[in-house]
């Protein structure tokens, strides 16, 4: 464990400490990325192998995230063993302050690397009360969790990271690389090299089959806008908006180690604009707000004297105007009640519940109060069947996993989503049990199906059906062959009691556009008439 009590006194100098911190940021950023790529690769290669090891490892960042773990525990009324890891982060924050934000958080690292403009000479003109937003967000998230709603967890920095990587950055890079490969493979002397390169990067880094995610632009746009906000203030997101930062900030206020400007300060004011989160304020006397300080040590590096110390002491609880006070608590409670209440009174949602097709074993009602919106299931799904809902599952179901069978099918020998889910929102099922999960039922559109509508031969859905006794039967009919004679034609008919709704028939249906066989919600797995049972 790093001790920071001796900053500027002996041994390691402040600028060396800053270097160490930057190395830590790089390492954790690389670990975050590596786990992302590794999880995709591992679950692609072994979608049905339970090792215990990979499931634990890929979730590590999320399990260390106290915001999602606390909110999830409140909403699901259940404490998972794995989420106790988040206690470690809380203890660390209690001792050292918001080191998570300054030393580890990948989102914070990106925002620090991309300041977009120099802040050496000027102070941001964002009003100070903006800092209160993160506390309001935090409280709304926690209050909603009491009402079993977890929708706003899509604002957690780690889930933002996973979402953007999964749906936009990674498939986008893949498309560019694939395009270049397809161009270069046509150059005679390069084709062998390109082929070799391709087998090196797939499936190690990029998907073996083209990855498709809906609305990638939306998520990358959201992510970019967070970066662009840096124009208004350095680390704008971390300062003003991040609910996880809010949670850690509250704990940081009483942390054992904290930044202290000693009395021999010359009030030169160099540390004030240097501080990337604006935690150091010059109000006649220079002081640091430990709730805003990310322990980045830049102040110590910039201090011409030796006045910035990080002593081991209980921080004074300095209440700032932007901190939590009664009004903000009441505002958050009000906003939560109105928000959650309105979601529940959504009449259309009650009559026609937006119950999309969910991953295997998922109960829609339970999912909404358990899913932390991280999207790891979507990352590892080898066929891209799992997409993240936008409004498909109602407003409260934003960024929960759904299955879009036209994009991908639920592989009969895969159980990756249940294994990777850090909160068991998708239950970890053995392959045998997962194969019996009914996620929907196929329905043939006889007005568009080739053998039904156009008397053409096609049995692709029957051929693909993985159910041992085939959930699609072929009905034999005698039809005109167009030249005056007749021919026997096979027409697909779904055997509803056998169909598990895996959707491979819809994925592979050769009819252009919408498939002529589609998966529809099966009422057995969902409560009709209500999509959100959390209240009771």
């Amino acid at each position, binding site marked *: 464990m790093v001790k920071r009590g001796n900053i500027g006194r002996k041994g390691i100098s402040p600028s060396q400490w800053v270097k160490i911190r930057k190395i830590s940021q790089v390492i954790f950023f690389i670990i975050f990325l590596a786990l992302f790529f590794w999880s995709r690769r591992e679950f*692609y*290669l*072994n*979608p*049905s192998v339970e090792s215990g090891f990979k499931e634990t490892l890929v979730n590590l960042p999320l399990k260390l995230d106290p915001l999602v773990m606390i909110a999830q525990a409140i909403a699901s009324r259940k404490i998972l063993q794995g989420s106790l890891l988040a206690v470690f982060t809380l203890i660390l924050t209690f001792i050292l302050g918001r080191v998570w934000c300054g030393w580890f958080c990948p989102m914070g690292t990106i925002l620090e690397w991309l300041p977009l403009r120099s802040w050496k000479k000027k102070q941001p003109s964002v009003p100070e009360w903006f800092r209160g937003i993160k506390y309001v967000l935090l409280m709304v998230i926690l209050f909603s969790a009491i009402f079993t709603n977890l929708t706003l967890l899509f604002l957690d920095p780690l889930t933002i990271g996973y979402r953007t990587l999964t749906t936009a950055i990674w498939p986008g890079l893949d498309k560019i690389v*694939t395009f270049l*490969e*397809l*161009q*270069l*493979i*046509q*150059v*005679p002397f390069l*084709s062998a090299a*390109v*082929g070799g390169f*391709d*087998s090196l990067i*797939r*499936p190690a880094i990029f998907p*073996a*089959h*083209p990855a498709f995610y809906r609305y990638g632009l939306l998520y990358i746009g959201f992510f970019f806008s967070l970066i662009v906000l840096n124009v208004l203030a350095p680390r704008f997101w971390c300062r003003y908006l991040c609910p996880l930062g809010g949670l850690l900030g509250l704990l940081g206020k009483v942390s054992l180690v904290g930044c202290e400007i000693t009395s021999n300060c010359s009030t030169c004011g160099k540390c004030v604009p240097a501080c990337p989160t604006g935690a150091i304020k010059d109000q006649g006397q220079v002081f640091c707000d430990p709730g805003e300080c990310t322990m980045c040590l830049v102040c110590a590096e910039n201090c011409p004297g030796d006045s910035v110390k990080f002593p081991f002491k209980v921080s004074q609880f300095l209440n700032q105007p932007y901190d939590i006070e009664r009004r903000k608590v009441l505002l958050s409670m009000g906003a939560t009640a109105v928000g959650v209440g309105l979601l529940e009174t959504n009449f259309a949602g009650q009559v026609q519940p937006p119950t999309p097709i969910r991953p295997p074993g998922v109960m829609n009602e339970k999912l909404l109060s358990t899913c932390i919106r991280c999207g790891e299931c979507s990352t590892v799904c*080898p066929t891209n069947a799992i997409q993240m809902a936008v409004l498909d599952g109602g407003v409260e179901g934003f960024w929960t996993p759904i299955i879009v069978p036209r994009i991908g*099918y639920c*592989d*009969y*020998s*895969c159980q990756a989503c249940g294994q990777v889910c850090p909160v068991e929102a998708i239950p970890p099922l053995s392959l045998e049990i997962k194969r019996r999960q009914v996620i929907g039922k196929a329905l043939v559109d006889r007005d568009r199906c*080739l053998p039904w509508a156009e008397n*053409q*031969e*096609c*049995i*692709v859905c*029957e*051929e*693909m*059906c*993985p*159910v*041992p*006794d*085939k959930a699609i039967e*072929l009905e034999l009919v005698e039809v005109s062959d167009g030249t005056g004679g007749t021919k026997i034609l*096979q027409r697909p008919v779904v055997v509803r009691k056998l169909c598990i709704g895996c959707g*491979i028939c819809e994925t*592979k*249906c*050769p009819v252009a556009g919408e498939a002529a066989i589609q998966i529809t919600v099966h009422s057995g797995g969902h409560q009709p008439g209500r999509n959100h049972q959390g209240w009771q």
Partner: protein
Amino acid sequence: MTSLSRKNFLRFLATSIGSLYLSGCINQDKLLSRSFSPEKITPTPFLPGPQNTVEADPTIEPEETPTQEPSTTPVPVYPDLVVARQGDPEQMVRAAVDSLGGMGRFVTPGDVVVVKPNICASYHSYEYAATTNPWVVGAVVKLAIEAGAKQVKVMDYPFGGTAEQAYRKSGIQAEVQKAGGKMVVMSNIKFIETAIPEGKDLRSTRIYDDILRADVLINVPIAKNHELALLTLAMKNLMGIIYNRPYMHTNLGQRLADLSTRVRSHLVIVDAVRMLMAHGPTGGNLADVKKANTVIASPDIVAADSYAATLFGYQPEQLGYINKGVQMGLGIANLDKLNIEEIHLG
């Protein structure tokens, strides 16, 4: 000499990428649709079966190629088709290939050999007879390596599940690696638009590059049920080497025959150790599996498929692609006209 400015560097980069791209475009026509060159695919490792019998056995009328010029050199007598029964899979493959004249008849030292088993999905292990028997594939790889093959690649493109998992689950990966072969995961970028000049309906399609470049293709299907084609055998097994498979299902028989005119299987070994009698091609029910302990080997893809069809109680002419194969001159379906050798082991 000034140092390279950013502008100049970018200019240099743009020019080189541009010229690279242009060179790609120039070659595009030629490369994207490789012209048909039978020499390249069929480096005459053997004479087609029917001709052999013409030379060796004058009692059998040459049906397919009556005007064939007699070969100047005497050709050894080989059966057109060998059926081995009741041994363990490797024994049966060895016995069958030996009777055909040994693997040396098909593989010359230094050849790159592609073995194409049927690994249709990652759902079940080999007992369910949805994928080719791993020991049959392993034996084929061993024989090819013993015959001096430089490299033996084994590949298929499963439609269900990931290739890596299907290779493992089928047991084929373990046997192939033990035998010294290489499992190749087929890459999406290596399916190359290829003209099929002899095709009647399928005139062009995207075919896997490694298969086009291979010196020898050994087609190792498993004999199993398929609702549209009745059976999945060797000609149907070639579906795995093309990209646009849903397209094939209309006019399947003709298109499969067309494909076989472009991609010749130099040796066909039909695995009927276990046969999937119903609910193919994916299977999953042991009650649908019949243990027949049979391996069929022939250089004639139509003959091999025809014989395999009889194991299911079908007449060869009931299968659309066999009929079309005969029409396209790919081989002989009439089993009475074939010189068939039956071997009973054990």
